[in-house]
């Protein structure tokens, strides 16, 4: 099926995401994958690698520099076009939505490149999902910490048990139609403000 393997260059400053894409490409049988995190000296690297497909993240401010380099085509032997087929609007949209862009050596057939692009798009999306879940987990941990501190303040200042302190927080949150962590944060902030000054 694959006559000669394509040389794929991944340019991504995010090392974790780049590693995920590289792994995906290798699983799909692409052996000639190169990952670059830093664009310094990239012209020489591209000349060495002679990539057929270049995948780059859209957040990279160096896209203008790279495109100019492709067009001058001194570093890259053959002209590079973005995507295989400009008429494939859906895949272009999916790529931009996912935050990835691709450049392909002119003349490469669509069926050879499309799977690489689709893979990059799905891995970019998976990475975004993972980053979002990580952020949610982090903020949940933060909430739990602040609730623990609020409970501690209530237990100390009002002589409540841990369970009673939590119940009071929960009731207040329900009455005010707010999240428990918000009520806890307000309490912690207020307690900090009301704490007797030690140095004055």
């Amino acid at each position, binding site marked *: 099926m694959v006559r000669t393997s394509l040389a794929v260059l991944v340019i991504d400053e995010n090392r974790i995401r780049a590693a995920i894409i590289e792994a995906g490409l290798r699983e799909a049988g692409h052996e000639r994958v190169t990952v670059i995190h830093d664009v310094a000296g990239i012209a020489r690297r591209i000349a060495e690698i002679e990539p057929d497909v270049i995948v780059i993240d*859209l957040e990279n*401010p160096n*896209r*203008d*520099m790279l495109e100019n*380099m492709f067009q001058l085509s001194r570093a890259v032997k053959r002209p*590079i076009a973005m*995507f295989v087929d400009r008429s494939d609007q859906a895949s*272009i949209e999916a790529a931009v939505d996912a935050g990835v*862009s691709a450049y392909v050596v002119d003349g490469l057939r669509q069926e050879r490149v499309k799977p690489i692009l689709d893979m990059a798009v799905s891995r970019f999306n998976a990475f975004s999902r993972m980053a979002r879940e990580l952020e949610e987990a982090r903020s949940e941990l933060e909430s739990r910490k602040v609730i623990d501190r609020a409970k501690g303040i209530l237990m100390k200042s009002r002589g409540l048990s841990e369970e009673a302190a939590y119940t009071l927080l929960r009731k207040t949150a329900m009455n005010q139609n707010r999240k428990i962590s918000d009520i806890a944060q307000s309490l912690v902030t207020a307690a900090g403000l009301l704490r007797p000054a030690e140095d004055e």
Partner: protein
Amino acid sequence: MSMGAAHQITAGFMPLFDSAVLVAAGELGFAAREGIELTLHRETSWANVRDRIAIGHFHLAHMLGPMPLACNLGLTPLASETIVPFSLGLGGNCVTISNAAWEGMAAHGAVADLDPARAGAALGALIRERAAAGRDALRFAVVHPHSGHNYELRYWLAACGIDPERQIEIVIVPPPFMADALAAGRIDGYCVGEPWNSASVAAGTGHIVTVKAQIWRNSPEKVIGVRKAWADENPEALAALLRSLHHSARWCQDPANHGELAAVMAQPGILGLPPAVQMPILTGHLQLGGGAELDIDDFFVPFDKAANFPWKSHALWYYTQMVRWGHVAHTPDNLAIARDCYRPDLYRSALKPLGVALPGANSKVEGALRLATAVGATGAGLVLGPDGFFDGQIFDPDEIDAYIAGQKSALARFLL
């Protein structure tokens, strides 16, 4: 406001000060007063702006003046037809060079007066001296190949007898990286908008040697590029937006508002730089390096001098420079594409209800006005110019072939 707005418009911008008229329209309520909910998206590259216009994420964007031409001429990887109904101002760029290159230029007669001819002569002498000593060519950076920066840098160098294709190297660097690249010695000079020139001067790592406002006074820079398919289907939304940009530009020009404008642009989601850094472009009072400072007339003009009018002669001048430097072939079809890209008709019809001064012509002879001049216009009086090129040349858009041929023969002289 959001639910009640008659028009929803999404616009992209790059973190550069000359996005101010668009940003202020959104941030200060000029758009809302015209019934527009304007959503602004900051982008990280011009390629992203172009792609998001092409796939319809953005209806319009802050763009480099030649960029819509490049899209329509098929010079970019992914593009949709883009038109220009509004210009975001005149001037605003500088050429900054490293301390080492400045010392070399000073040894050949450069002084801190920003005079393009004197600075160019000194730079030419330095370049010849370096070549004779077998040293590497100086490396300059611009922000994009299809940019006012690239074309004005090349124009200046060529008019001073320096061949930008052979005697120096020109590379692309994103604006926020310019000062660092200069400080690290990766480049010897650059042409970029503010605040990225003053940034090198403030860091003590560069000297401003000349400015766009002296290479070509009151010359075009950024524009509003609009996806043509959207403009065709939404003429009322576009007209309302152009009126809001007109009011925003008038507000931005008024010195009484400069402090507030600087604060708006300083916000983390816009430029994310302190307000003080925004002031040189607004006052035209620049530190040049080494303690020298200068007041520059018409350094950046967001509204006066018909700054927002999308002159076809501006687009055609860019076209001649694209031809000059081999970016596009000069053919009747390409010329027609360049002629149709800027749309003064849309600007005029949107602003007509306001009863403001509007130029009567779509094109003008560029470089002909030695002094500020009142011109024929509908509505109240209108003052244009001065608009001279520093080398005294004139661009007559009715004589494009002769202009291109003249520059080609001037170029050929370098190769002798």
